[in-house]
């Protein structure tokens, strides 16, 4: 199996896997979404909420706020399942406080009248300096004059399979590597070129398909076959490679995509390890 990283930024990574089994790639994809642990707010204790937003809605909004979960940040925490406390304790949770009145908040500059002021995610104060909301600008709730909000939020480690707020990825998907072939004897019409929604195709000056342009853009092809349908003389054919895929991971900012991939591999490794261990034991005891 070969991996070739095409793009790697703070929250998006694209790589090509060659000679890979699709079932294996799918295992990585599913684990990346569902079983890579991250932190999200799980409980809130509301002391005061004068705003017009119900506590339940506020709890839901707070739960969805992405919180930094890279391995450095969460190494000191253990998952709640492995902890021997009942609800939560300092070993398995981090607490945030939110305490704001209308007077504390700055005026909303985009409005003419100063009636409502917005509480943002930057107003959540964490007990752990490494664990904090990824974005400062997420609007949480609005307050009117003389209103106050005071609450404590408890964040815990969880997995995407229990609730979508614990999913580290927003996109975690793959597609098979496209193969686009032209019938050299037939003429490629402009309709075919224009049919492609992703600008994969282009004609050179002497009306031949541009190989250079194709090479550069072939990974944008979604295998939609619009070009094949638009071609009346079968001058173009689109298929895909069986064991070569383009994988894309985009995260919500709580960790970088490389870490999602590495941790997904770790989880898969642990699972396989558990099976081999249990098999050994089973055979020994029977």
């Amino acid at each position, binding site marked *: 199996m070969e991996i070739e990283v095409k793009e790697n930024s703070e929250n998006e990574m694209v790589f090509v896997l060659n000679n890979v089994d699709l079932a294996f790639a799918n295992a990585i994809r599913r684990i990346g979404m569902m079983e890579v642990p991250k932190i999200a707010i799980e409980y809130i204790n509301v002391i005061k909420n004068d705003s017009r*937003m119900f506590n339940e809605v506020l709890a839901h*909004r707070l739960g969805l706020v992405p919180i930094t979960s890279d391995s450095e940040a969460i190494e000191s925490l253990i998952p709640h399942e492995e902890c021997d406390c009942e609800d939560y304790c300092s070993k398995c949770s981090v607490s945030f406080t939110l305490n704001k009145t209308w007077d504390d908040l700055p005026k909303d500059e985009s409005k003419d009248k100063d*009636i409502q002021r917005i509480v943002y995610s930057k107003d959540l104060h964490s007990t752990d300096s490494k664990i904090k909301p990824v974005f400062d600008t*997420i*609007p949480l709730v609005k307050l009117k004059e003389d209103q106050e909000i005071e609450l404590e939020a408890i964040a815990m480690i969880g997995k995407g399979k229990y609730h979508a707020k614990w999913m580290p990825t*927003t996109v975690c998907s793959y597609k098979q590597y496209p193969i686009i072939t032209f019938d050299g004897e037939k003429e490629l019409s402009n309709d075919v070129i224009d049919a492609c929604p992703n600008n994969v195709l282009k004609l050179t000056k002497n009306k031949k398909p541009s190989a250079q342009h194709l090479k550069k853009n072939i990974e944008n092809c979604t295998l939609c076959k619009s070009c094949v349908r638009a071609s009346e003389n079968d001058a173009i054919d689109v298929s895909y490679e069986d064991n070569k895929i383009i994988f894309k991971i985009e995260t*919500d*900012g709580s960790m970088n995509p490389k870490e999602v991939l590495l941790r997904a591999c770790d989880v898969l490794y642990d699972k396989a390890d558990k099976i081999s261990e249990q098999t050994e034991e089973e055979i020994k005891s029977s």
Partner: protein
Amino acid sequence: MIPIRCMSCGKPISAYFKEYQQRIADGEASKAIFEDMKIKRYCCRRMFISHVETWE
């Protein structure tokens, strides 16, 4: 209030909403703003375009 995340894909779009509103008020076109903010999918874009502020 704008939902925290895109309802289809889960991207935390609300973090960009303040900036978006500001730039729209300054007369910029939505498409240019989205391309600049790297909001690529139409599920996320519709969260901004179709948002109606009912809580004022």
